[in-house]
C-alpha cells in the first residue's frame, strides 16, 4: 500500500498515512485530487478505480471515507477488508467509534494503525493482539480523564 487517507464527506482530511516518500507539496496535491475524485462518485459505483499508475480502493463509513492507494499487483478485495478491519479496531477501542473520536484522538488512530499496518503491509490481523499492544500504553497512564461520548459509524447505530 502506498498511502491511506481518511476524509469526511465535506472533504476534510482526518488522517493521512504515507508509506512512500513524497514531498509535502505532492502529498497535498494528491490529497486534493483524490478527495475530489472519490467524493464525486455515486454510492452504487464500484469501490475501485484506476488513478495515475495506482489502484484506489475506498469505502465510506457514515460520514467518513477510507481510501487506500495500492499498486497494480495488489489485491483490491483484501484491501477493502484492511479498511474494514481498521474500522473494527477503532470501533473496539473507542467503543462505537465516530468521526469525532478520530478528530479528538488522532494520535490514538495513528497508534492503532501502526500496530495493524507497518510500511504499508499488514503486520498483525488479530484484533486481540493489536488492541493488546495499544492498551498496554493506556495502562501505563496515570491520569484518567473522561472525554465526550459519541455515536458509532459502524453497524446499525446512526451517525450524527
Amino acid at each position, binding site marked *: 500500500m502506498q498511502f491511506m487517507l481518511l476524509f469526511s464527506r465535506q472533504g476534510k482530511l482526518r488522517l493521512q498515512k504515507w508509506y512512500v516518500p513524497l514531498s509535502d507539496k505532492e502529498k497535498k496535491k494528491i490529497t486534493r485530487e483524490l478527495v475530489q475524485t472519490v467524493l464525486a462518485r455515486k454510492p452504487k459505483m464500484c469501490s475501485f478505480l484506476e488513478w495515475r*499508475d495506482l489502484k484506489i480502493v475506498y469505502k465510506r463509513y457514515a460520514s467518513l471515507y477510507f481510501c487506500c492507494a495500492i499498486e497494480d499487483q495488489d489485491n483490491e478485495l483484501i484491501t477493502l477488508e484492511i479498511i474494514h478491519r481498521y474500522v473494527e479496531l477503532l470501533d473496539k477501542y473507542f467503543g462505537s467509534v465516530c468521526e469525532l473520536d478520530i478528530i479528538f484522538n488522532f494520535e490514538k488512530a495513528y497508534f492503532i494503525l501502526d500496530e495493524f499496518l507497518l510500511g504499508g503491509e499488514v*503486520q498483525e490481523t488479530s484484533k486481540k493482539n493489536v488492541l493488546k499492544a495499544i492498551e498496554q500504553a493506556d495502562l501505563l*497512564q496515570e491520569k484518567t480523564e473522561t472525554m465526550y461520548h459519541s455515536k458509532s459509524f459502524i453497524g446499525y447505530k446512526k451517525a450524527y
Partner: protein
Amino acid sequence: MPAVSKGDGMRGLAVFISDIRNCKSKEAEIKRINKELANIRSKFKGDKALDGYSKKKYVCKLLFIFLLGHDIDFGHMEAVNLLSSNKYTEKQIGYLFISVLVNSNSELIRLINNAIKNDLASRNPTFMCLALHCIANVGSREMGEAFAADIPRILVAGDSMDSVKQSAALCLLRLYKASPDLVPMGEWTARVVHLLNDQHMGVVTAAVSLITCLCKKNPDDFKTCISLAVSRLSRIVSSASTDLQDYTYYFVPAPWLSVKLLRLLQCYPPPEDAAVKGRLVECLETVLNKAQEPPKSKKVQHSNAKNAILFETISLIIHYDSEPNLLVRACNQLGQFLQHRETNLRYLALESMCTLASSEFSHEAVKTHIDTVINALKTERDVSVRQRAADLLYAMCDRSNAKQIVSEMLRYLETADYAIREEIVLKVAILAEKYAVDYSWYVDTILNLIRIAGDYVSEEVWYRVLQIVTNRDDVQGYAAKTVFEALQAPACHENMVKVGGYILGEFGNLIAGDPRSSPPVQFSLLHSKFHLCSVATRALLLSTYIKFINLFPETKATIQGVLRAGSQLRNADVELQQRAVEYLTLSSVASTDVLATVLEEMPPFPERESSILAKLKRKKGPGAASALDDGRRDPSSNDINGGVEPTPSTVSTPSPSADLLGLRAAPPPAAPPASAGAGNLLVDVFDGPAAQPSLGPTPEEAFLSELEPPAPESPMALLADPAPAADPGPEDIGPPIPEADELLNKFVCKNNGVLFENQLLQIGVKSEFRQNLGRMYLFYGNKTSVQFQNFSPTVVHPGDLQTQLAVQTKRVAAQVDGGAQVQQVLNIECLRDFLTPPLLSVRFRYGGAPQALTLKLPVTINKFFQPTEMAAQDFFQRWKQLSLPQQEAQKIFKANHPMDAEVTKAKLLGFGSALLDNVDPNPENFVGAGIIQTKALQVGCLLRLEPNAQAQMYRLTLRTSKESVSRHLCELLAQQF
C-alpha cells in the same frame, strides 16, 4: 465507560481542537492557530523547565496543527527530548511527531538515531516496537545507514518477542524498498525463510511480505520458500473455519496471510518438485471448490475475504498458464461473477478475464461470455466498469467475432465517456484492420470512426487507412466512392476531408466515369470544404489539386485559377504560399509526360507494424496489445491482413519513427519541381526518409542514405591489396590503454570531442547516429613535425561483437605528414544489443620506432537511442508493464560532479532519451524514455534518476524489456554524474 477514558486525555489539546472546530471562518482558524503557536513557542523558550506532560501536550498540538495543513518549523527538539522519556505515552508522542514531521537536520537525525538505538537495545519489547515503527515510518536513507545492519539480527534472534519480530520484518522491508544496497544479505536470509514455519500467525504474516520483496531481487536465494509457502497455504486452506481463532475473519481462515502466500508463489514458476506441485494444485482446487459452496455468512466481509483469496488464486493459475483444467475452471468462475449483483465483483471479473483471454488454453472459454460483456458495455452505470468491459472485448476479439465486437464498440463510442474515446477509437481501428476479411468493411469502419468520433481519431488512424488503401488495389474504387459519399454530408469532420482529399487525389479517376462524381464535381466538393480547414489540411488539398490536374486535364484551368488567386499565392502561411507557387509553376511549365511522371500514383508502402498498434502500446504499455501481436490464435491471418506484421516478442516499444507514417509534424514543404524527377510529390506529406528511400536526397538524409547498401569497395581494391582487408583478430592488438574506459565514459553523453591525446597524436571524434545506423569521423592529427610511417588504424570487434555491430572502415593513407591531419570514416550499423564497445587499434612508426595504441571506440548502446515523448499516464502504464525484477536495474551512487539540474538534463538528453516533464511526482527527479534501435530488435527503455542533494547521492532506475540492456544502460549512465 468508553474505552478512551483509559487513555491519556490531554485536556488542553481537546480544548484547542474544540476551539478550532468552532471557528466560523478560515481567518478565525488561522488566528486561533497563530495564537496557539505563539503560546507554545513562549512555553518552549521560557525559563521554566517544562514537565514531560506539558511537553507531550504541546508537541501533540503542533502535530495537530501540522496535520491541518499548516507549516511547523519548531518543536522538533522538544519531540526528540520526549523520545528519551521513560513514560511510554510521552515517548510514543515523540515518535509520532518524528514519524510525521521528519526533518533532515543532521544534528537532529543524530539525536533521533541515538534515542532509537537506546530503545532497540532496551530489551523492552514495547519500546523496541516503537523504535522499529519509527524507522519504518520514516524509512530514510540515514536511518537505513544507521540500522539496516542491526534489524536482521533482531528479526532472527531466538529471544525476540513475536511482536518485535513482526515489526522488525516490515521495518526491514521498508528500508530495503528505500535503499536495497544498505540491507546486507547473509546468513540471516535462510532463517527468514523459515519464519514461514513460525507458530505465530502474525509473525508469518509480516515475514511473507518481506520474503516476497526480497525474492524478487534474489529468486535463487529464497527458492526454499516455495515448498514452505505451499505447505503453510495448504494448512490454512484445509483448516476448518474456526481453527485459527482470532486469525479467522468472518469465517474465512487467515485471508490476509493466504493472499500474501499466493502472491509470493507468483514470484516463481510452478514448483518443480512433483509432490509440492501436487499439493499446491490441490490447494488451488480447494479454493475453486469453496467458491461454489454456500456462504457461511451473509456479511459482505465474508464474501470479500473469500473472494480475495479466490482472485489471488486465479492470478496464480494465470501466472502459471500451464494447467488447462484450472484455467477453464477459473474462467467459468469469473463468468459467474460477470453477472453478480456486486459491482465490485463484476469489475474484478472483467479485469481478470482480460488476462485469461490471452492464454491459449482459456481463450475459447472466455469467448463464450461475449454477450454478457457486450451487455456490460451497454448497461453498466459505472464508467470504470464499462472501461474494463471494453478492454475485455478487445482482448477476446478474433476473426470469428470481430464484426460483432467492432460494431458494438462503434455503437458504444457514440455515448462513451470522453476520457476513453481515443482509446476505443484506436482499438476499433486495430481490430478492424487485423480481422478484416474484406477491405470494404475496413474502410467503412474507419470512415464510421471519423464520423462518430472524428476529434478522437488520431493521425495514426487516418494515415493507416490511406496506407492500406494505397497498398490494396481491390479496395481503391470502393474507398473513393465511399469517401466521396461521406464528403457530401454538410458538416463533415476535418479528418474526413483529409482522407477524402488524399484518396480522391490518388484514386478519384476510378469514380470519374459516373457523372454524379465527375472530375469537376469531385473538385468542387473538396474545394467547398477548403476554407473551413486548418493549414495542414489545406496544404494537403493543394497537393490533391495538382494531382487532379494530372488525373483530369479538364480541371486544369479551374485549378490554376484557384492556385493563382491572391489568397493562395500571397497567403500569409509560407507553406501554403510555397505550394501554390510551385504547383502553379509545375502545372504551367511541365509537359503532360513530365507531369504524369511527377504526379504518378503512390507506390505501395512497405509493410511495417501498424502505427496504430504502436500508439496503443504507447498508451497502454506493451502487454496491452500483445494478444494481437503474436497471431498465435489465428494462424490463417497472415497475408490478407499483412499490414500488421508479427513483431519479435522482444520488441516492446515500436519507435514512433518506425511507424510507416510516423512523421507527425505538419507537412514539410513539397519537393521543388526541379528535383521531383523521382515522382511522388505527396510522399513527403507523410513519410520520413527511412521509409522512403526514393525521395530526392536532402543533405540530412544523405548522411544515412549512403549507408544503406553497405557500399562494397571497388573490386580493384580487393585485388590490388593483398593484405587482409579484414580486421585483425583481437589477439593481434594490444589491450586497451588503462584510461580507455575513462575516455569512453566521456563520450557516453556526447558525440564529438577529443578522444585521445598524447605528445605525438591527437584523435578527434565526430559522430552522428540515427535509428540503428551511425557514422563516425575520426581525425588523426600528427602533433609532431615528423611524418608517421605505416599509419594504420583498425577497428576490432572482440568476442561476439561481430554479430552485434557492423563497422565498416576505409583505409587511410599510410603516411601522415608532420602537423597534418587525416580523416577516417566509419559506417556503423547496430545489429543487436551489445555490451562492449569495439576497439580502435592505431599503429604507426614514428622516427623508426613502432607505436601501438588501443582505445575503446566511443560507440555504446545508448547511441542508438531514439527519444520517445509520452504523457505521464502512459509512462506509468509502461513502467508498470516492465515490472519483472530482471527488467529493472537500479544503482545508488555518490555524485562525482556538482549536482546541477541543468547539467543533468543535458547529460540525459545527450544519453539519448527523451526527458519527460510532469511525470515524476517529485519535480527534482528526472524521468526519460526512449527506444534502443537495433536491426534485429527494438528495446523500449524507461529511466528515472532521483537526485538527493542532501546526501549527494543519486538513485538511478532503468527498466527495459531486456535484462542485459537494463543493466548495461544503468552502468553506463551511472558513471556520468
